[in-house]
């Protein structure tokens, strides 16, 4: 982890987490 821009990778991770979360929610709703 470079200390240059620790915010950048975290921002990307947050967006990924949102997309993955929406996917999980969609999958769960249809599976149950």
């Amino acid at each position: 982890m470079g200390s240059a821009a620790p915010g950048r990778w975290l921002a990307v991770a947050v967006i990924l987490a949102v997309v993955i979360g929406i996917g999980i929610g969609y999958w769960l709703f249809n599976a149950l």
Partner: protein
Amino acid sequence: MKDSAAGRNYGYLDVALFLVGIAGLAASLTILWLGMRAVLGVGGFCAEGGPYVIAHHCPGSTAWLIPVAVFAGLGSAGLMGWEGSKLGSPWAALIGLAWPALFISLGWNFLEFAFFPPEGMAGIQIGWLIPGVLFVIMGAVPLIGFMPGGKSWKSDAGDATFAFATPGADDDAVRKQRARLATDLAAYAHEEAASAQHADEGSPAEQTGEGSTDDDLVTKLQRLDALHRSGSLTYDEFHKAKQAVLDEAGKTNG
């Protein structure tokens, strides 16, 4: 792992749990959104269980999935806020986006089903149109707080990517405003004292007398005290203004 050398007081576990909280919140909101659409699709209400004959059964697993999603969402939001506060305030502030996400997405459902109702319901559904509009407004208004407050998106904090318009973010402007207020107050006190003196020197009939000058002084001091208590004036500014008022009063009486 704690990386104190870089000035951080959080570890990779905190980052991972923060992301789990975000994903959990996004999943819960998605389930709520899909569940609401399913329920609106059967007329907007449904029931399961109990001794009654049920006219509108809940579609799929929505009867238990929606309540579970509500509590999962609250738990995820709590985890996100708790871990986010360790990563820095801008990350914790992201939790505020859950409100607009919830209300705008559910408001969209209301609006869509108001204009395109399910079979058997004719025309625009006013009962869904009104909550739809209200939900969208409720969701959109707090978004204004997330606009960059006239500054660049890069914050001075270094660790943070976004600069949110948080209270106290513009301390300089507040300080300048306070200084201006203190100067205005001092000028006002000076003017008042000068006019009182002028009145004293004028006709003896218009003399305000020492008693009323004292009353005036007390009123001014009380006003300053109220400003100080309300936080509009700092301790220093309050004392400067108070001194100015007392000085003027001394000149007038002396």
